[in-house]
């Protein structure tokens, strides 16, 4: 049994086309198990901080984080309405299926 989301990568093509991600500091809100985070990492942002309110999903995301992205991707438990980050810190905030 398997469910494959976006096998032809239309989503990632749309995200790549909408802005330049290279060297940017990115905050991903609602990262779930990190499916989209790992796709965004391929665009070479400087850093991605990704959070989700579900601790189980964050555990899965951390478990699936490839060695090469450690240090560049950080997963945290948190919610969109109380972002525990300082002001004026990110170039890009992405709400993935959050609103």
């Amino acid at each position, binding site marked *: 049994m398997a469910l494959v989301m976006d*096998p032809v990568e239309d989503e990632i093509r749309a995200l790549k086309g909408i802005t330049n991600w290279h060297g940017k500091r990115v905050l991903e809100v609602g990262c779930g198990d990190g499916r989209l985070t790992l796709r965004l990492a391929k665009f070479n942002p400087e850093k991605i901080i990704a959070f989700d309110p579900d601790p189980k999903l964050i555990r899965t995301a951390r478990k699936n984080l490839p060695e090469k992205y450690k240090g560049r991707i950080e997963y945290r438990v948190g919610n969109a*309405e109380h972002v525990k980050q300082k002001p004026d810190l990110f170039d890009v905030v992405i709400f993935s299926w959050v609103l």
Partner: protein
Amino acid sequence: MVHALTEAQRVLKPNGILIDLRSAAKHRCAGLGERKRWKLVGVMREDFADDIAADRAVKQVVREGLFQQESLVEFDLDRVMDTLQDLRAWLDDFSTDKLPSHDWLYQRVERALEKKRDGTKIAVRGLMRLRLLRKVEH
């Protein structure tokens, strides 16, 4: 929702961007086959109250001058499944008090699949919306 958007505005650098990625308020379609060979079998029935509220929240923060909208892109997103069990599991997530059961859709896909050769994939196709909002400085 407005609070989440306000938080995003707070943590963004000057001239930073907010990307809002989510499903469009349009019923998803279940079908057989992949990409251009995909054939519609049935249209789901979904509740869009949250999507409509989210659109309102975005309009509000634009109206209040926190962000300005720069672009809006729409594209199809497919969820491709190997088996009917995958479809069942996915449809079960939509079973709530507010929504009708999708048993009829499952059965329709099952019947359509019987006429196809082994290995035919099931794909649910939905319209996605990608909105780019830029932080406005005051």
